């Protein structure tokens, strides 16, 4: 904690004040330390430029016409005007939202229930069932996509959201279940037992006691899955056969594969498609990080 508060004030005055109080005998070393910090800062700025460049490129290019893009001179708004005719942006953003929300609701429902069961309700067969679900983490999407595609087409679900939603939900469930189980294991058993002794059934204990406590894990799963599903191409490409139901990422992927040469329009579309996931990322970064590192274990 002390390290953090030290690094927040950044003016040269406060930095020297800090080092003066922190290490009086080492006053001589103040200059090299500051030089070092400046170097680190410059390096970090350089890396930031590399990471941010694609976003700059998208924004800059989207405000040009194709001619302006090729010549490298001038800006205009015309590509943004052409965007909606190349890509039904409103419709596709809505589709992305519908698919994400439905899939995530299913994932949350099944994974919180299962996670609670595995963590707190020792039942016969719990371990093999848990292992079976976790083992599915090893199955790459591409390995099941062909049989799943044929199965779902036989159910006539390729021309509705349902097929894609089911596949996304199934793909997201193993990791979500893993995360939820780990989270519920962290809750004290006494909490559950006390509520049971108070006369609540196990089902109600789950809904009224455990679930409200699981909000951080629920947010983590939601954020991870939102970004994953929003950004996915393959499942959408195969399981959303009706163009009116395409998500924005699929729409964009199809557009780019269709030899569209109007790059500024493509960049405007890319930008629009990226914004929602980026916003979710910026707001819930902390949860995304905790979800990402959850697999490391202790």
């Amino acid at each position, binding site marked *: 904690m002390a390290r953090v508060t030290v690094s927040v004030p950044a003016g040269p005055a406060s930095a020297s004040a800090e080092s003066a109080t922190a290490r009086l005998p080492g006053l001589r070393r103040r200059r090299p330390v500051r030089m070092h910090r400046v170097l680190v800062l410059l390096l970090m700025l350089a890396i930031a430029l590399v*990471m941010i460049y694609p976003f700059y490129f998208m924004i800059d290019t989207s405000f040009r016409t194709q001619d302006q893009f090729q010549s490298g001179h001038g800006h205009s708004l015309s590509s943004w005007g052409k965007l909606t005719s190349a890509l039904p942006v409103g419709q596709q953003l809505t589709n992305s939202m519908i698919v994400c929300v439905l899939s995530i609701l299913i994932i949350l429902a099944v994974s919180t229930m299962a996670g609670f069961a595995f963590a707190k309700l020792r039942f016969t067969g719990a371990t093999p069932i848990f292992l079976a679900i976790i083992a599915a983490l090893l199955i790459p999407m591409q390995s099941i996509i062909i049989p*799943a595609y044929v199965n779902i087409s036989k159910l006539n679900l390729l021309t509705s959201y349902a097929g894609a939603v089911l596949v996304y939900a199934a793909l997201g469930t193993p990791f979500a279940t893993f995360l939820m189980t780990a989270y519920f294991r962290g809750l004290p058993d006494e909490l559950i037992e006390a509520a049971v002794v108070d006369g609540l059934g196990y089902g109600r204990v789950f809904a009224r006691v455990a679930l409200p406590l699981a909000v951080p894990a629920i947010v983590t799963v939601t954020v991870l899955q939102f970004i994953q599903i929003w*950004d996915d191409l393959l499942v959408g490409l195969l399981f959303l056969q009706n163009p009116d139901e395409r998500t924005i*990422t699929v729409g964009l992927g199809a557009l780019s594969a269709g030899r569209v040469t109007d790059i500024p329009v493509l960049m405007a579309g890319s930008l629009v498609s990226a914004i929602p996931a980026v916003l979710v990322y910026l707001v819930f970064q902390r949860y995304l*990080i905790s979800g990402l590192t959850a697999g490391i274990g202790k």
Partner: protein
Amino acid sequence: MSASTATPITSRLALRRRRRPRSALARNRGRTGLVLALPAFALVALLLGIPILQAVYYSMTRWDGLVSTWVGPSTYVDQLKNPIFWRVLENNGLLLLSVPVAIVIPLGIAALLHERVFGWRFFRSIYFLPTAVSWVVIGMVSARFFAQQGTLNDLLASVGLGSVRTDFLSGEYTALLAVAITFVWSMVGTNTIIFLTGLATIDPSLHEAAKVDGAGALRIFWHITFPLLKRFVQFSFVMTVISAFTALFSLIFVMTGGGPGYGTTTLEFFVYQTAFAKGEFGTGALLGVVLFVIMAVIGAAQLKLLRSDD
């Protein structure tokens, strides 16, 4: 169990009477547990478990998605004789060469961020940003970056290397290199975050002690930081390998379409191409099974590594 059979019958009855409410509760708990776990299991079994078994079955058939004719395990032998299959695996192998780069660069960046100089949180957010952006978008920008008139060629020209101006995506190996560079770029944020989390778990007094003893920054990193980060490096290594095998479909789809030739066709892309472009569902299923086996081996190796650490 044996203890209870040895107790006299009366006390056993008493025991049972005393236990009855609790065992009813236990039964209730067991039943609730099963009911709550079942939907997740059913979803995974129906949409992942059964399809992977189907994939194994159909991998030994000739299948167009509607009608399948049984061929047998010889389909695998046929595939092993297919030079394109090996070309595709070679691409996967070459892509794996980028994995160490995708580990080392983030290690350095995490070490920089860990110095916590002014604005490190801001920089962390910037570096991590690509995690939120789809491969489709990344691939679209990347395709322009490596194009004949793209930024990379402009950069090369500005440092006097204008004569090498080339369309990177039109050469088999340069295209694969372009895919690999894009892959590394987008893994940087994720791995940096993992290492930063790891660094935060290290007791700073260890570093102070080493510094007092006169160890230089590099020695401290190599002898103290790195061993303590091992678990995190292992984790991100496996994650990066898995991503290299299974996460690049969209990037390749948008950036190169697998070409030129089979220059950037990896196994996962080959699955898609074989099934949905050529209509050979049986062969596609077979390639998917091969991919699954590779992933399972990597997963098992990781488990073994984790176990050996304990």
